[in-house]
């Protein structure tokens, strides 16, 4: 295999007090693939995701993205990276409650300097794509949980990131809404060519991935990448 992974974690270690959240975790994510990080609660899968995304800095080990060392970057540089190259979907409560759904989706674009009108036009397209155009001018509080998550997915993808980090994106939804969110999410990610790191404990959600990696006691058991 000549192609290099886009995102790598090598021997990450991180403790919260007495608890070892990561104890030598390694992971490789190739461009455009969907990797499911699975494991029970407290296995360290969310911590691993936060390290990969540059939200947390591991005590030792190295996180690499496109040949750059994330651990060596300043907070500002990592922020810029998150702004420009990454997207995020969390379980719930991630939308800014004061802004309308359209403004929420437009936010990443505007943070990278796109003009208001242009950002709103693109945001509208994404809302249509995720079948939530009808809540565009409502606040997140007025949309349903499933709609809110689809708005969040639109916001994660609107900037055409190279990696989307999704932490239990369907965790707060029933299975019908969860399936819909996953179907639209993965289809859209595949279309834009974004890699997805998907943290979940649900096998049916993980089934949307290309391969899985099992996190247990802070260590990753990674399934081999096959092109």
């Amino acid at each position: 295999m000549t192609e290099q992974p886009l995102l790598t974690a090598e021997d990450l270690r991180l403790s919260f007090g007495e608890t070892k959240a990561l104890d030598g975790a390694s992971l490789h994510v190739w461009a455009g693939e969907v990797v499911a990080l699975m494991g029970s609660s407290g296995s360290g899968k969310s911590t691993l995701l936060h390290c990969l995304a540059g939200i947390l800095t591991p005590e030792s080990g190295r996180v690499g993205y496109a040949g750059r060392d994330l651990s060596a970057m300043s907070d500002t540089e990592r922020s810029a990276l998150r702004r420009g190259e990454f997207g995020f979907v969390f379980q719930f409560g991630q939308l800014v409650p004061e802004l309308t759904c359209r403004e929420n989706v437009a936010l990443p674009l505007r943070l990278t300097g796109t003009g208001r009108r242009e950002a709103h036009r693109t945001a509208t397209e994404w809302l249509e794509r995720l079948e939530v155009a009808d809540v565009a001018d409502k606040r997140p509080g007025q949309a349903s949980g499933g709609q809110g998550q689809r708005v969040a997915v639109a916001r994660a993808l609107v900037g055409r990131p190279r990696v989307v980090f999704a932490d239990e994106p369907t965790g707060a939804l029933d299975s019908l809404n969860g399936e819909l969110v996953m179907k639209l999410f993965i289809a859209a990610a595949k279309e834009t060519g974004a890699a997805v790191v998907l943290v979940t404990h649900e096998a049916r959600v993980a089934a949307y991935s290309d391969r899985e990696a099992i996190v247990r006691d802070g260590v990753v058991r990674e399934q081999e990448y096959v092109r």
Partner: protein
Amino acid sequence: MTRLRTWAFEIGLGARMSVAGGRAGWTRLALIATGVGIGVAVLLAVATLPTALAASNARTEARTENIAASTDLPRGDDTMLIGIATMMFRGDSVHGRMLQAEGSRPPVPPGVTTLPGPGEMLVSPALADLMADEPLLAQRWGARVVGTIADEGLSGPADLAFYLGTDTLTEETGHRIAGFGYAGVEDEGGVSPVMLLLSAVGMVVLLMPVMVFMASAVRFGGEARDRRLAALRLVGADAAMTRRIAAGETLAGALLGLVVGAVLAVGAGLLVNRYASGAMSFYLTDMRPVPALVALIAVGVPAVAVLVTLSAMRQVVVQPLGVVRLSGTTRRRLWWRLILPVLGVALLWPLKDGLGGSSGVELQAAAGVALLLIGLALLLPWWVEATVHRLGGGSVAWELAIRRLQLDSGTAVRAVSGIAVSVAGVIALQGLVSGVESTIGGEGGSDARPFQHEILPRADLPDQTWITALEKTPGVREVQTVRSVYGTQDGTSVRIRIGDCAVLAAFAETAGCADGDVYAVDVPAGPATYELSDDTTWTPPTANHEVAATPSYEIYGPALLITPGALRGMKVPSAETNFALNLDTADPDAVEHLRNTVATLDPQTLVSEPGNATVAATMRTIRQSLLVGTVVLLLLIGASLVVNVAEQLRERRKVLAVLVAFGTRRRTLTGSVLAQAAVPVLIGMTLAVGFGSALAAALMAMVEAPVTVDWFGIGTTSGVAALVVLGTTAATLPTLMRLTRPGNLRSE
């Protein structure tokens, strides 16, 4: 009975919850207690003022002599001659009396056991300290200090006073008294309606923001409490029970606040006793608050706190699975918010042509001011909402802030209403003060003309003695003799002064004066005959110019100024001889040297200074206290803003963490927090400047001063307010930084 018991349990449960909430709970309780405590301390100070002032006044009266009755008093074994030797030092007035016993049983002033003999003096402790620090003052009276005046003979610990023993007084130069203690007249002139108005408005302006502050203090951490109550609803508490539990929580904070307030008030009392000067210096024993007011505070503050909590809870429905906020769904209405301001205007309108003489107008004015200020606090939420809803998008930071305000401007407005009310009040007060100043003439020292200082001797010393002594005084450039006669024409009392052109220029605009000119000030020119105090008449030379008085002398009323050449040998009736001095005003010690010379020759001599020194000094004191008050108020408001913003940040930590996760710059977040704090403040400030200026105009009209806009006052006050906002934001930045550390996301 059982109902009472369950109620008691619920309120007790609330109180327990307020202390058992872990660190967050303690913080919240501490904040409420501090906020309420500061308010209570201010209220206690206000409640203490009447008794403290009364005690101080009682002592002042006890040492005051009935001079008016002295002419009828025969000399006796129990009489005494006194001389009024009160004199200024720097900006402070030093109460002084010359004492000369006429028999074996002379009256003794309070605080004195043995009268000082000639060449001896008794001083107050404050004066003793000052004399130790100021050699210039120590040499003034040339007497040996043989003791101090005890507390019961002083108005307060900072009172500057002395009794000088003497044997030089005569029936002409002194006043005969048979005892001390006279309540007939106030020491420093009566309290004018203007001063009453000033203090009434000042009280309102001071207390309003304190009220607003306390009201917002008891709402600290309200959202966390609502969530806690929601958990209680889940286990079966009904809506009424949650209200009682909330009341119990607030009550705990308010009661603790009372304790904090009492402690703060005692501390403030100790500081006042030690450091305060002038009229605000009191002994510890003076500072006993009025019991009825204390009772009112002790009952009223917790009651108001509970009422505020309950009214705040009317806007939320605490459901078992969360809190439903009703605000935002109902648009604020305007009409009822206009009632109070309109009432205020209605009260103030009849007073626009001056206060008049009738009693109770001060009350009416104060009520009008209070209504307008409360009205401002009521109008503000509507105003902010109406304005914010018209604001559109902009940068991301701006959009975040504006959308937040559109969703819920209530929290922001609560913090700002205090600032707006105080700024409006302070602008009004400053306007009033400058109005009063403009009616009493320019402030001292602003007039650069020579011969502004005048010596009015009382003892009968040869003119040459004075002239020699004055010319030798450091800082005196030139001494001129001015003779004064008081005459009355058609009921108008006119002061007739005779002096050189150079001297007369100090009294009126006598440009182009030549020897032989006669000037009429505020009286018609032309021939006139005056009745003199000894029932004779005199016809001075005819005035050939009508001129205006100089600013310093405007308040002395009509005058006739005669150059010696105009008299042409005319006989002048018995006249007082005064000395006008060209003083080196650049040297601040010059006037002190002058006073030293005067005190050595005749301590009773009056040194007249340019302008209305005493009133100007009072105004300066008021301005200074106003400034201090403003700063304290704004700090108070700043503190509550900090708490408010920090709390809002904490409640939004999840959203903030997510914003940081997908790469929002700190700059953007900081900008949004700043805009969120600044926009309501700006809106509030415009409203406050409008209300304040209108109020100032109304108050100026009341004291019959020309209505002007005090741009300086407005500028400084709103500038300081803007600084408070910036400082607030700066102070909350650490919280913002801590909350937006990306790692915070994992706590969810």
